[in-house]
């Protein structure tokens, strides 16, 4: 024993201390080990946004740029993995669901901290849901947390377990938890109690007053120019090898309104990621010598569906006599079927999207792996079939080949499009030409987006319109408002008190049923039936879904874009630079 020198004991002491501290961290923090490939630490990622975020408040944020930034700074209990489109554990390490699907028991990871070091527990979870469900706060996400019209009941069992009780069974309920950011009670409770939560965390707030559980935290905001996030040292996810994520030091969002300017900045090396590129610019990037070896990916169809629809609601005949008289044709199913038969979807895919799109005959795109009805007929353009359908529906042609309806009036109507969407204007031009072949004179009216929405949703003063919608999730539940006849997004006839047609009534029934059915197979057959009814009655004549096109530097590792929002940054904590940054691969980079 005397042989053991002081150095020896010192060494042991050091080792024990090191183990204890390391061990202490491992004991206290229950981190999530992801599948992230090992990466290199360091570097800044520059991402471009079309508009700047308006607020950093997760509770009230409505617009996309704000949500894009906020989601990198916050975390949720259960996440939807964008690549697999399935749920996976987030802040909650496990959960159990009761037999009737109404009670969720979630167990949180222990020992986690907010980005300012403050520990996190179920008090924060309870506070979060209290705030989101508070009527006075008027959070846009409140309605998500009220399936069946009743708020979710949140009960704190102990420091790490929390129970959620739903008023009725709700299909895929755990998907609700995705994007409900857990808020820090220690920072926001005073504001909430004072009734000023909506004003908290605006763009002028100091970074020290904002904390979250996301991979990054706020560093700096320059009005109109950029918002800079820095690595969150307390982030709770690790790589496969157990290294704490994120790899990147900084994440910078810069605001560039015009897409072409964004592409130019990518080419010049100033930006690293383009979240959404148009087909033409994508081709250009593929051919430009400076970018052709970068990671330019065509992910196939996303969840966006573009469609043509007619005004089918009952109009005040006094106010809009012309539109009301034309509605007789619009309501004629044969008429709509003929229009659908005359549309040249191939031309839309080729000429509008440069081939990078998928033709649609229903609103569920091929990008949605689980819920598409494969049995729907996909008929190509056929003027013969269109003419047959029109004849059977009581329409005739006069000597000048112009189409006349049953009362011998010329069939002509206007198609509204948003002036800010050049793709839809082109679709309208193509359809206008196709309809001319049938003898229908269609006018393309390009209006500013808000004015268009006002006409379609409020004053109902329109005849036909081309719009596009993007589903929030692959699950059918976010589509409820579109298919329920009382829904606000039931575009062809929104907000009905009673369904106007038998088929709309049946769709109402089916959608409500699938919302409370827990078994996937049963739900799928219900939703398949909804898609079939939609295809038979054509309230929306679906046209095409553009492919999701993204771009990233060739040395960005772990880049795994997906077709669910956020296409490129959903796994931002796993992204890393393969070559050390600071040694520029392109001499034109300018990083302050």
């Amino acid at each position: 024993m005397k042989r053991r020198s002081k150095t020896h004991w010192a060494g042991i002491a050091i080792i024990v201390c090191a183990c204890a501290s390391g061990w202490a961290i491992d004991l206290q923090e229950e981190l999530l080990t992801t599948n992230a490939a090992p990466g290199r630490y360091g570097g800044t990622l520059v991402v471009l946004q079309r508009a700047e975020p308006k607020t950093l408040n997760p509770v009230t944020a409505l617009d996309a740029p704000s949500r894009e930034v906020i989601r990198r700074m916050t975390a949720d209990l259960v996440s939807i993995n964008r690549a697999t489109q399935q749920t996976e554990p987030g802040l909650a390490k496990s959960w159990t669901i009761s037999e009737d699907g109404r009670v969720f028991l979630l167990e949180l990871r222990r020992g986690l901290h907010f980005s300012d070091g403050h520990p996190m527990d179920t008090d924060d979870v309870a506070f979060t849901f209290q705030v989101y469900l508070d009527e006075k706060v008027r959070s846009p996400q409140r309605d998500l947390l009220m399936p069946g019209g009743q708020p979710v009941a949140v009960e704190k069992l102990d420091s790490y377990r929390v129970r959620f009780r739903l008023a009725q069974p709700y299909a895929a309920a755990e998907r609700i938890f995705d994007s409900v950011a857990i808020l820090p009670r220690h920072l926001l409770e005073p504001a909430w109690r004072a009734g000023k939560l909506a004003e908290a965390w605006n763009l002028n707030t100091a970074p020290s007053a904002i904390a979250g559980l996301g991979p990054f935290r706020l560093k700096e905001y320059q009005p109109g120019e950029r918002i800079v996030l820095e690595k969150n040292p307390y982030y709770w996810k690790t790589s496969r090898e157990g290294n704490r994520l994120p790899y990147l030091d900084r994440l910078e969002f810069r605001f560039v309104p015009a897409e072409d300017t964004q592409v130019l900045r990518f080419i010049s090396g100033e930006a690293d990621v383009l979240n959404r590129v148009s087909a033409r610019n994508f081709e250009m990037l593929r051919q430009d010598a400076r970018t052709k070896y970068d990671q330019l990916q065509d992910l196939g169809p996303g969840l966006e569906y573009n469609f043509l629809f007619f005004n089918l609601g009952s109009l005040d005949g006094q106010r809009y006599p012309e539109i009301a008289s034309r509605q007789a044709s619009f309501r004629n199913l044969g008429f709509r079927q003929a229009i659908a038969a005359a549309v040249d979807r191939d031309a839309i895919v080729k000429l509008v999207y440069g081939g990078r799109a998928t033709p649609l005959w229903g609103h569920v795109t091929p990008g949605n792996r689980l819920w598409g009805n494969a049995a729907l007929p996909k008929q190509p353009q056929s003027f013969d079939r269109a003419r047959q359908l029109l004849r059977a529906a009581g329409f005739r042609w006069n000597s000048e080949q112009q189409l006349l309806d049953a009362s011998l009036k010329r069939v002509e109507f206007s198609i509204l499009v948003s002036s800010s969407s050049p793709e839809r204007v082109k679709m309208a031009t193509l359809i206008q030409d196709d309809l001319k072949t049938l003898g229908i004179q269609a006018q393309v009216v390009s209006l500013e987006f808000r004015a268009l929405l006002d006409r379609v949703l409020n004053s109902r003063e329109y005849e036909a319109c081309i719009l596009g919608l993007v589903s929030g999730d692959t699950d059918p539940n976010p589509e409820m408002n579109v298919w329920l006849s009382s829904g606000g997004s039931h575009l062809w006839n929104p907000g009905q008190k009673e369904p106007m047609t038998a088929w709309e009534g049946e769709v109402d029934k089916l959608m409500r049923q699938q919302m409370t059915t827990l078994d996937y197979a049963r739900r799928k057959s219900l939703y398949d039936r909804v898609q079939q009814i939609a295809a038979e009655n054509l309230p929306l004549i679906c046209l095409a879904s553009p492919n999701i096109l993204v771009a990233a530097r060739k040395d960005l590792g772990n880049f795994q874009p997906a077709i669910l929002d956020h296409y490129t940054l959903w796994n931002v904590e796993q992204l890393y630079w393969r070559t050390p940054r600071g040694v520029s691969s392109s001499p034109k980079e300018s990083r302050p």
Partner: protein
Amino acid sequence: MLSRYLLRRFAHIAFLLAGISALSFALLELAPGDFLGEAKLNPQLSAQTIAALREQYGLNKSLLQKYIYWLGSVAKGDFGVSFAYNLPVSTLLWPRMLKTLELTVSSLTLSWLIAVPLGVWSAANRRGWLDRVVSFAVSALLAIPDLVLACIALLVAVRSGIFHSGDPVLPVTVLVLGALPILVRHTRAALLSVSAEPFARAALANGIHGFELWFRWLLPAAANPLASLFGLSVAGLISSSLLVETILGWPGLGPLFLEAIGARDFYLVIGPVILSAAFLAGGTLLGDILLYMVDPRIRLES
């Protein structure tokens, strides 16, 4: 006399701003759609939430109520609150206004410094072939709208690789190229008409020619339209760079204003309009004062 005149003009400016604000409010109210229009399309939001949000933002208030609220807010220095940002409009406008002025003041100075000598030289060498070339170039430049100029400049800059985002050189170049043609042409036209006056012949007979003739004697006489034009240049300090800023991604008032229009963010739209109107009124006042100073033939009404 001058001070009375100025006092009257300032009263006019106050009336002008009040008039513009009232007119803008009326126009905005007339235009279809409001801030929550797009929210209606959002499948996540129920009608009740939207109705509650409308109450909160005061979208249901009558036009007069909104105007009175806004006047009160002006007195406080806020100029209203932006629905999207939930911040007072003045805090949003101030930093961006400075960035816009950075561009426009530079381009104003540069374009006048280049345009006047160019215009004089062009008038003096009227028949030469160089004048024809310059004339053609100026006309061609005039024929290209600002938007297209900005796009071309962007393309050229990136192809040649000298493009840096924080650098004002590119936007200023575009603005100068856009403003130059009109200034050159007006200077040239004014000088041509002045050079035909009898006193020009007299000066020539007295042996004054060349640089001295054109700059010391003819240019001041031609100052009448130029003074008004300068006033107009100053007047456009806020509004002339809107589209260029949006295309080139310069963080000025342009992108903010255009986005606010698209989103119907009421008070945020009124803010830059009033700012622009204030500069306009100030600019025309400046133009009138300059006119009075350079052209003694104008008597002000007493």
